[in-house]
């Protein structure tokens, strides 16, 4: 297998360095579970599954927070997917390199803007329109995940061979058909982009906390909503004992949600792969 001893040594070095990202993720999982274990030990499943999150009264129901997390992420995705995909299609099919560079850079800047700044923008411009609500949270969240989606879906679309699109165009069909062919050929990458955007949405905290209203009741569109991560960010500051532990448990739950979405997304990708 290996040609020489030095080569084996090099591969060992790569193995050690390459293990680091996985070790980091594993370590953070251990960290969350060890901090969250106290809540698991002291609180009954009934309490944790309850409908009210009121730590001062000993109520640690995670249900509204889980629903809030899912609702805000799903709504954000329904906004981000059409905008992101349409932009990526337009840039791939109809834009020159200059325009593409300009739009891509602008989108990438959004990706690098601190969450707190986007949250402040949302508080100034979005909240006056829809209140501190699930709708505001979804809009701000959409703004935060659209860049990831646009850039990754765009990259996937640009890997589709230009010759193929030329051949389709040569048949004299309309732009929409060409776009359809492009989407079908880039479907793996697009699914990957959507999955990644979804996982980012589940984990975003700072910006959402500034506009969501953060009341831990069952969510409605124009009512306030609290998510697992916004609750963590608002309360961990001075939380002690089992309250603190329950917050970590919530974060572990976010990680589990992300893991589930990721595995599901890859499964869809595999199914899409086999025609």
């Amino acid at each position, binding site marked *: 297998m290996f040609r020489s001893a030095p080569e084996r040594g090099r591969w060992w070095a790569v193995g050690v360095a390459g293990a680091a990202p996985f070790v980091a993720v594993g370590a953070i999982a251990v960290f969350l579970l060890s901090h969250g274990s106290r809540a698991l030990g002291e609180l009954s499943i009934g309490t944790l599954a309850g409908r*009210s999150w*009121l*730590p*001062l*009264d000993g*109520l640690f129901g995670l249900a509204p927070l889980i629903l809030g997390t899912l609702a805000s992420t799903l709504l954000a995705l329904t906004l981000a997917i059409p905008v992101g995909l349409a932009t990526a299609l337009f840039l791939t099919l109809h834009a020159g390199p200059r325009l593409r560079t300009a739009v891509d850079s602008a989108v990438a800047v959004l990706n690098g803007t601190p969450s707190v700044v986007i949250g*402040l923008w949302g*508080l*100034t411009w979005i*909240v*006056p329109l829809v209140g*501190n609500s699930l709708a505001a949270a979804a809009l701000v969240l959409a703004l935060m995940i659209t860049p990831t989606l646009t850039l990754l879906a765009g990259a996937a679309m640009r890997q589709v061979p230009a010759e193929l699109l030329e051949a389709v165009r040569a048949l004299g069909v309309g732009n929409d058909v060409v776009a359809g062919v492009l989407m079908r050929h880039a479907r793996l990458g697009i699914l990957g982009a959507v999955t990644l955007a979804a996982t980012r949405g589940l984990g975003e905290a700072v910006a959402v*906390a*500034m506009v969501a*209203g*953060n*009341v831990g009741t069952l969510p409605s569109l124009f009512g*306030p909503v*609290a998510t697992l991560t916004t*609750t963590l*960010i*608002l*309360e*961990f*500051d*001075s*939380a*002690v*004992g089992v*309250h*603190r532990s329950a917050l970590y448990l919530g974060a572990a739950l976010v990680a589990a949600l992300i893991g589930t979405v990721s595995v599901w997304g890859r499964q869809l990708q595999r199914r899409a792969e086999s025609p």
Partner: protein
Amino acid sequence: MIRFVDTHRFRASLAAVLLPLALAAVACRGSEAARPQEVRISGASTLYPILQLAAEQLRADTGLRVRVQAGGSTRGFEDTVAGRNDLGAMARELTPEETSEVRKYPIAYDGVGVVVHRSNPVGELSTDQLRRIYRKEVTRWREVGGEDAPIVVVSKAHGHATLETFLEHTGLRSSELEVDVVGGDNAQIIRVVANTEDAIGYVSLAEVLHVIDRGTPLELLRLDGVEPTPAAVADRSYPMFRPLYLISKVEPSAGSRRVLDFLLGDGGRRIIEQGLYVPVGS
């Protein structure tokens, strides 16, 4: 078909990655040299403005280096117990178990003020009206002498001392609260109320006085006829306030002692009063 790549350019970019890391490793070893005495403080962000200004003053006056970090009261407590700081900053009362593990030094008091938007004509509420508003028994400003508009009730997230002070004064339980918006830090509550004409909230008095001074459209309400001011907190005529502490695990070191003495002395008193907090001695 296959295009082989120029390896020199690739090596150059690999070097570009490795060089800063190598430099960092060197810099790291260089810093092993003896460090001057310094005092590390971490904890509640509420105390950050006071502590940072005190640190700068002490540095200028005596050369003592004080490093102030935030992270929240609980982080401050954990750091103190683990010996990762010299002093912890706490913006909340300590739990009984916590009290048994550390020494605490009250530094200042901070009032909790009830605020509305500047355009709101209501200037005063009684504790009972406040209680009814936060229970949503009163839902329109007209019922407490204001305009005919719905009241947007803003509260603080669980775990924050401001919320506990508010609950203690009004005698409400947290499960009784019916609110529209929950915020984390004081700055967030301030932003929400300043952005919402019909909102009511309660926040750190020092912070809100500061931002009103800078033109933020907020107004502090009199509570049971008492104007919320640092002076009214000092003479206890204004009822809602919370203590701010520094804590230490062992007998404070010489450096920590100097920080505490400074904060409790004239220099500290000036900084605390300029920050619109209330010194403990008053």
